[in-house]
C-alpha cells in the first residue's frame, strides 16, 4: 500500500498537551538544553558589557568630580590669595583666621594651613584650620607673595587640602546602584529570552521529537504540523517539519515496497518449498524404483549366472567324451593311421582344446559377473608377483624381464582382481612370445588426480583402429596359430574392473607393444 504524497491533511497533534507540559518540565530540569546554554552565554556577555560600560561611566564621573575640586582650588587661589597676602603682611591674625575659616567652609575643603616664611624669623607663624589627613586628598601648597614695587617676596605658604572622601562615597553609591539595576535588567531580559526561546523553538522541537519518536511506519503515516499560528510557517522549524514529513512519507513508501517485496519473496519461498517437496517425492519414488530395479537385476544376474554355470557344465561333458575317445583312438589305432589320419586326429585335438578353454573362460566370465564381491585390502603387487611366479613355472624356458611396482594397495575382491592380473599378464606374456628382450611392466601412476594401474608389454601390439571391440568376447587380433587365447579374457577383465567401479582401456602400437590401463572406484566406493 503506497500513500500518495498529498494525502489528506490531518493536523491532529499526535500527543496531548499534558504530555507536552510534562516534556517541558523535564526540559527545564535538563542540564544541556539549548535555551540553557543560550542563557548562560547571554548572561555572560551581558555582564561583561555592563561591567565595561559601568567602569567607563564611573571613570568619567570620577574625572569630572576631581576637576571640579581642582577648579575650586583654583578659584580659592585666585580669590583669596590677595587678601591673604595683605593680612599676612599686616600680621592680622583675626583676619587671617576669618579668611581661613571662610576657605575651610567651602565644600570639600577639610584643612587650611598658613605658614610664615621662616627665613628671617625665629618663630614663624603657623595657623591651622581643620585637620589634615593623608589619604584621599587633593592638596596644594600655594606661596603667598607680597609685591612691593618691583620686588616680589614670598611671605609664606598656604596649604589647602580638599577631601575626596565624599567623591569616593558618591562614586561607590553610583556603582552599586548601576550594578544592581543592570543586574535586575539582565536577569529580566534573560528570563524573557528564555521564555521566548521556549515559546518559539524549544516546545516545537520537543513536540517534533515526541511525535517522530512514536511514528510507526507500519500504519498509515499522519502528516505532522506544529501547534502554532499559520503566519509563522516559513521559518527553520517549518522547514525541518516538512523535511521530516517528507522523509516519513518516503520511508513509508519504501516500507510498503519492502512489504510487497517481502510478500513476493514469501510466495517465492513457498513455491520453492513446494518444488523441493515435489523433488523429494520424486526422488523417493526414484530411489524406490532404483532399489526395485536393482533387486530385479540382481535376481536376473543370479539366474543368468546359474544358467551359465549349468550350460558350461553341460557343455563340458561332451567335450570330455570327444577328447577321451580321441585319445583312445590315438593310443590304440595310431599305428594304423597314415599321416593324413594323424593330422585329422591332431585337428580334433586342437578343436576340442579350444572348446574346452572357451568353456572354462566362459565359466570364469559368468562367475565374475554374478559372484558377490568380498571387498578387502589387496596388494596388487603381491597378486602380480604370484601370477608371474606361476607363469614362469609353466613356461620356465622363456626369458622375460618383469618389473612390478613395489606395493599397490587397493580395495577389492582378491579372487576377481587376481583374474584380472592373470589375464593381463598372461596376455602380455603371450604377445611378447617373439621378442628376445621381452619386457613386462606392472605398476601405477597418477594421471589427472586419479590412480591408474597398468600392464605394459613390448610385444606384438595391435592396431588401435581395430580396438573398438577389444573388450567384446570372442574378438581376436592375431591368427589363432600365432597366439593362444579364447578371446573371452578381456571381456572378463572388463566386467570385473567395471564391477569395481573402474574403467579399462588400452593403448597399443603394432609391433611396439601395448599398455592396458585400468582404474578402480572412480566415483568412490558404493
Amino acid at each position: 500500500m503506497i500513500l500518495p504524497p498529498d494525502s489528506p491533511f490531518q493536523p491532529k497533534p499526535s500527543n496531548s498537551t499534558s504530555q507536552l507540559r510534562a516534556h517541558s518540565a523535564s526540559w527545564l530540569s535538563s542540564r544541556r538544553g539549548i535555551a540553557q546554554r543560550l542563557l548562560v552565554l547571554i548572561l555572560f556577555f551581558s555582564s561583561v558589557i555592563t561591567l565595561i560600560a559601568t567602569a567607563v561611566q564611573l571613570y568619567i564621573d570620577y574625572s569630572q568630580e576631581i576637576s571640579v575640586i581642582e577648579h575650586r582650588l583654583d578659584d580659592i587661589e585666585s580669590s583669596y590669595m590677595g587678601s591673604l597676602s595683605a593680612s599676612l603682611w599686616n600680621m592680622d591674625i583675626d583676619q587671617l583666621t576669618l579668611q581661613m575659616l571662610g576657605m575651610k567652609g567651602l565644600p570639600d575643603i577639610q584643612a587650611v594651613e598658613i605658614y610664615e616664611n621662616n627665613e628671617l624669623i625665629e618663630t614663624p607663624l603657623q595657623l591651622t584650620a581643620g585637620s589634615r589627613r593623608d589619604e584621599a586628598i587633593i592638596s596644594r601648597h600655594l606661596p603667598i607673595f607680597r609685591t612691593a614695587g618691583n620686588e616680589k617676596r614670598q611671605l609664606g605658604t598656604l596649604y589647602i587640602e580638599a577631601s575626596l572622601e565624599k567623591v569616593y562615597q558618591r562614586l561607590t553609591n553610583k556603582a552599586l546602584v548601576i550594578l544592581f539595576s543592570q543586574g535586575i535588567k539582565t536577569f529580566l531580559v534573560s528570563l524573557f529570552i528564555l521564555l521566548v526561546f521556549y515559546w518559539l523553538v524549544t516546545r516545537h522541537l520537543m513536540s517534533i521529537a515526541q511525535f517522530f519518536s512514536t511514528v510507526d511506519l507500519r500504519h498509515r503515516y499522519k502528516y505532522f504540523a506544529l501547534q502554532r499560528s499559520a503566519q509563522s510557517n516559513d521559518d527553520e522549524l517549518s522547514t525541518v517539519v516538512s523535511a521530516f514529513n517528507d522523509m516519513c512519507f518516503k520511508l513509508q513508501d519504501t516500507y510498503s515496497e519492502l512489504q510487497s517485496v517481502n510478500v513476493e519473496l514469501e510466495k517465492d519461498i513457498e513455491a520453492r518449498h513446494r518444488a523441493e517437496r515435489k523433488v523429494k517425492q520424486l526422488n523417493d519414488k526414484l530411489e524406490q524404483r532404483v532399489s526395485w530395479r536393482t533387486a530385479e537385476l540382481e535376481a536376473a544376474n543370479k539366474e543368468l549366472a546359474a544358467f551359465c554355470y549349468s550350460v558350461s557344465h553341460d557343455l563340458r561333458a561332451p567335450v570330455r567324451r570327444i577328447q577321451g575317445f580321441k585319445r583312445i583312438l590315438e593310443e590304440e589305432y595310431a599305428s594304423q593311421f597314415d599321416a593324413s589320419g594323424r593330422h585329422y586326429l591332431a585337428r580334433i585335438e586342437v578343436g576340442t582344446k579350444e572348446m574346452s578353454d572357451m568353456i572354462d573362460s566362459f565359466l570364469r566370465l559368468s562367475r565374475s559377473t554374478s559372484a558377490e564381491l568380498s571387498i578387502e585390502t589387496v596388494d596388487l603387487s603381491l597378486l602380480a608377483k604370484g601370477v608371474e611366479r606361476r607363469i614362469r613355472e609353466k613356461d620356465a624356458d622363456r626369458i622375460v624381464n618383469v618389473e612390478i611396482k613395489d606395493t599397490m594397495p587397493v580395495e577389492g575382491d582378491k579372487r576377481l582382481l587376481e583374474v584380472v592380473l592373470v589375464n593381463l599378464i598372461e596376455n602380455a606374456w603371450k604377445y611378447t612370445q617373439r621378442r628376445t628382450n621381452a619386457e613386462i611392466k606392472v605398476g601405477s601412476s597418477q594421471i589427472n588426480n586419479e590412480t591408474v594401474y597398468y600392464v605394459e608389454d613390448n610385444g606384438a601390439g595391435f592396431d588401435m583402429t581395430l580396438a573398438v571391440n577389444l573388450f567384446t568376447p570372442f574378438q581376436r587380433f592375431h591368427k589363432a596359430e600365432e597366439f593362444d587365447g579364447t578371446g573371452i579374457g578381456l571381456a572378463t577383465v572388463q566386467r570385473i574392473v567395471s564391477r569395481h567401479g573402474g574403467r579399462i582401456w588400452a593403448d597399443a602400437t603394432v609391433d611396439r607393444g601395448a599398455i592396458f590401463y585400468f582404474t578402480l572406484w572412480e566415483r568412490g566406493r558404493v
Partner: protein
Amino acid sequence: MTQQTILLVEDNVDDVELARHGFKHMGVDCHIEVASDGELALDYLHGETSDKPALVLLDINLPGMSGFEVLKRVRENETTRRIPVIILSSSDEASDITRGYNLGANSYLCKSVELFEFRKILENLGLYWLETNISAPH
C-alpha cells in the same frame, strides 16, 4: 582272492565306456557293475546278494534321483553305511565338493577333460582302495 566288484553309477554310456577303459589300464583285477540311475544303484546295493561292492563310483548328475540323494540313502542304510563311495563329478564348484563330503563321501574326483589324467586318477584310486585299503567287513 575273489574278484572285487566296483559299482559305477553313471547314466551316460560314453562316460561308462571311458571309465571302463580307464579301469582296464588300472591293472587291478575287478568286475565293474554299472547302474544307470539312482534307483537301480540302490536296488543293487540294498539287494539280497551278500556281496557288496568294494567301492562305489558315484556320478552326481543322474536322471531322477540325484547322486547326492543316493549317497545319503547309502549312508543311511546299515548294510551299506561303510562302503567307500567316491564322487565322480564334472563340477569343481566348492559348494558341490562340500556337500559331497558333508553327506559322507570318502573322496571327490573331478572328471577332467584330459583322459590321461583321468586314467591316472583311476589307477591311483584302484591301487589304493582295492589293493592297499582293507575294506570294512559288511
